[in-house]
């Protein structure tokens, strides 16, 4: 875990051009093993409803490379959100392992998983999930507030504030700092969520249907923003979506059906 995370506020670095979907499909299994940042190995997960057991994921393998923009596509109910949750340590697999940067993370003690979620992973969701009592700025700062105790936070307040302001400027929300989430539009909320996910300078961004609740054009804006982050700062992004058109804009697509990755 000692690798330096890409600083998203740096200048863009050069990168290879995007490939077409067809060739993407063919390249599925040829992910460079050495560069795997986050992967799931033989992961299974099922839900219990009383005596009925519903298998959601079955012996699944998926990996994402560093700096890659991966899209996981599937219909609703295919388990793609579950997969994302497992990758982000929000949930534990019934079987199998999750590996991050060469270390197994699904069996880590709770406190270390929490640190991962706080500092190394950024997460955005379909329903934005901003805290309603906090202003936009405070929402963006919330991961840092969680990371540090009162004393150290107050000491570094100024630095944190600058970071947050820069991020908000980048996503185009500088004029909405003091607003509460209920006063923002859907697109604005998602942008605030993106800024929040980036404030602790993570290595990886997990996006669960980020445009699911937005209209076409707003959705495109959000996706453009994600692409910029991926290209400019080489931020690894794993995006889950049911829309193949959106998935097309990623570097690589992985299809999820009936709990397995389709080959």
């Amino acid at each position, binding site marked *: 875990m000692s690798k330096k995370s890409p600083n998203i506020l740096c200048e863009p670095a050069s990168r290879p051009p995007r490939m077409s979907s067809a060739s993407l499909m063919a390249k599925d299994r040829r992910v460079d093993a050495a560069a795997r940042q986050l992967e799931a190995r033989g992961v299974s997960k099922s839900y219990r409803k009383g005596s009925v057991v519903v298998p959601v994921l079955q012996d699944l393998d998926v990996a994402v490379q560093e700096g890659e923009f991966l899209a996981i596509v599937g219909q609703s109910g295919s388990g793609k959100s579950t997969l994302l949750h497992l990758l982000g340590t929000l*949930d534990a697999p019934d079987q199998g392992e999750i590996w991050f940067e060469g270390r197994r993370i699904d069996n880590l003690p*709770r406190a270390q998983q929490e640190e991962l*979620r706080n500092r190394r992973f950024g997460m955005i969701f379909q329903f934005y*999930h901003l805290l309603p009592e906090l202003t936009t700025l405070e929402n963006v700062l919330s991961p840092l507030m*969680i990371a540090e105790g009162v004393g150290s936070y*107050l000491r570094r307040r100024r630095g944190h504030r600058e970071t947050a302001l820069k991020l908000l400027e980048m996503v185009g929300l500088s004029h909405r700092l003091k607003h509460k989430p209920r006063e923002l539009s859907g697109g604005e909320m998602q942008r605030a969520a993106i800024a929040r996910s980036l404030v602790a300078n993570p290595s990886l961004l997990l996006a669960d249907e980020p445009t699911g609740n937005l209209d076409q054009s707003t959705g495109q804006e959000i996706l453009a923003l994600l692409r910029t982050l991926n290209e400019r700062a080489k931020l690894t992004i794993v995006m889950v979506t049911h829309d193949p058109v959106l998935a097309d804009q990623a570097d690589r697509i992985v299809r999820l059906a009936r709990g397995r990755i389709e080959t």
Partner: protein
Amino acid sequence: MYKLLLCWRYLRTRYIALASVISVTLGVATMIVVNSVMEGFTSEMQNRIHGIISDVVLESRNFSGAMNAAWHEERIRQAAGEDIEAMTPTVVTPAMLTILRNGQEINRPIQLIGIDAATQSDVSDFGRYLQHPENRRQMHWELREDGYDVRDHQAGPDAPERPQMAEAGWKYRRVLAQFQQFQQPFLRPGSEAATEQVTRESGPRSSSPHPNPLPKGEETEAWPLLDSESPEAFASGGEAAPGKDPFFGYQQEKPFDMATQQHTGIVLGIAMATIRRLKDPDNPNGGTEDLLLVRPGDDVLLWLPTVGTPPTFRSEKCTVVDLYESKMSEYDANFAFVPIRRLQELRGMIDPTTQVGNFNSIQMRLKPGAGGEAVRDKLRAAFPVECFAVETWRDKQGPLLSAVEMETRILNVLLFFIIAVAGFGILAIFFMIVVEKTRDIGILKSLGASSRGVMSIFLTYGLLLGAVGSGVGLALGLLFVYYINEVADLLAWVTGRPVFDPTIYYFSRIPTIIEPHTLAWIVLGAIGIAVAASIFPARRAARLHPVEALRYE
């Protein structure tokens, strides 16, 4: 940091949670008011009891008392002298008081106490409770000319008036003497015979202020009219014309001049001498007045037992020289005080050879800081327990004081239950808040907040709510206590009945004492309950699974 921020925001945005805290507020305020009023009452009562009984009392178990007070005082000094500031002997006997009023004989059983006026006030608050300012400074058994308090000097301006006290003392006695002389012609038919009988059978005896001791040989001689051998005297005195003076048959050989002479001085407890009533029977808030049955300057009759077996009865005519008001009804209704020497003479407690009198008890005042229990124990060791009982003032009034203490404790428990009930309200509301915030808790966990952190948000929320509730309750309670008399007046105005019936309760201002110790306990206890009530919901919040929480609609 996020915990504080969120806590603060929750407090600011959810005013309904404060509704759950209102019961905490009310509970705290009530507890404060009740505790300070009870503390005030208890303290008043204790002070009075203490002031009356004095610190430590040595009592002789013998009805005839023990001999030679001075000798015993010396022994006391040997045993515990370094702690003792002052001592005074007393003689105590049950007796019967007869008051003449409007032609009636009003009899009351009393506790007759012979005191040494010079030293009694060093030991107890006796002097403080008298009605004449001069007597308060230095008690004398001589009737004062005038100047008795018309109003209780210990109470405030609402104290009941005693306008009759303006006519008390020698001034009044002379008028009374004239009136009785005026009455004489109407009593003539039976009077001469009675007078003759009396002068034949009784020994010479005058009623000057310092009477001679009874001749010892006639120890058991009954007074005239008590003598069963001369019923005629009794009868003739009794069958007189209407408006007879029952004292009439007691007239002495040397005519007693009421206008210039007084009998043995006696101080009566004010309750036996007065009847308290409302000035306006239809208006309970209109103030009270005391109707005096006797006042300083009147004569009363005492009947008391002598010592020796079997005891016989003696009677003595006394002149009321002052009234005693301690505000403890037990004492004001039962105590009467006479000079100790005279009482010793009457009861036959004086040793003929040494002329030293017996005593029933010695009251002691201790030096400030001396421990009553320690002195009591020393004296118990020094004096044989079969002969003497040594008790502190607390021992003597133990049952009463511990009853009050128990009362206070029970009240506190009951009131604390009110706050505990409030705790359940907080529990319910917090639970709802946690349910409402389920998704937010999921968000926090997805951002890396620990379960413990989430739990502490709600615990802190509980603490803050408890603090707010207690704080407001504290302020409200203190305000109430400060203005308690105005509140009592308001209540009386609203309900039409006084909160504390002035004909029954002696004080005009409700006594209150605020003890910081008690306040701290109440506030901390209330906050504790609020925190305890938030534990269960907080734990539930902590245990939420992030994914399930996020999915919560």
